[in-house]
């Protein structure tokens, strides 16, 4: 509450200026497709490296290999992916708990640490297999 009041204290409206939206990627502050495209393609690749030869590794159970393949290609039904494909609705995203295990996004800034960290906690052997496959 105190924080709220503090925030409001700093606010002063400027009568002569209208409210504006700024696009931060352009110096003109106006959206451009070029700047958006550059931003989107500059992101580190979301496909994690996976050695194709290691997929035929006989020491690793087939179901784990299949899972890893889908994981590295970001093709698992994570909540993130389900949202993106419109399977679950944005408003319902907090109610859907079936996929809670994969609740964190694979893509973007959380990167692979998020999901593998989670897997490590669940099952060390599983994690070792994944590491082997991702080499």
């Amino acid at each position, binding site marked *: *509450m105190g924080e*709220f009041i503090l*925030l*409001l204290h700093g*606010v002063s*409206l*400027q*009568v*002569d*200026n*209208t*409210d*504006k*939206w*700024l*696009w*931060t*990627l352009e110096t003109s502050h106006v*959206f451009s*497709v*070029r700047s*958006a*495209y550059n*931003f*989107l*393609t*500059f*992101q580190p690749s979301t496909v994690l490296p996976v050695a194709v030869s290691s997929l035929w590794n006989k020491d690793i159970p087939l179901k784990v290999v299949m899972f890893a393949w889908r994981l590295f290609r970001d093709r698992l039904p994570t909540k993130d992916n389900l*949202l*993106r494909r*419109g399977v679950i*609705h*944005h*408003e319902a995203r907090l109610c859907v708990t079936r996929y809670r295990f994969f609740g964190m996004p694979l893509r*973007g800034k959380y990167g692979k640490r998020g999901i593998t960290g989670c897997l490590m906690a669940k099952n060390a052997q599983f994690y070792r297999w994944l590491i082997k496959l991702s080499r």
Partner: protein
Amino acid sequence: MEVGGLGIRRIREFNTALLGKWCWRMLVERESLWFKVLSARYGLSEGRLGAGGCHASLWWRDMEVLRREEWFQDNVQRVVGNGENTLFWSDVWVGEVSFRVRYPRLYDLPMHKEESMLGCVS
């Protein structure tokens, strides 16, 4: 990123960037005819066009997802002038999230939840 080549764009990202232009226009061209058509079709609540659910057009369903995406949200910024067109509770005008999300219990209090900045602050 590769340099050279035939200048062929990455089609997924390019499509997203082009759709992003619509998201941007949705913010700045609120007086335009197409915006009025959309608000008649999908409704307008708390300054935002409605989602439309599964009966929405394919294009609109794409837009609905896209306008919430981080790459877009993180790169647009609200600058408050006279406060006429900024919603006090629902727009993100200071910090990372709206007051509505940040102070949900305070948000329960006011009767008129779509009050502008101008109405709330002055």
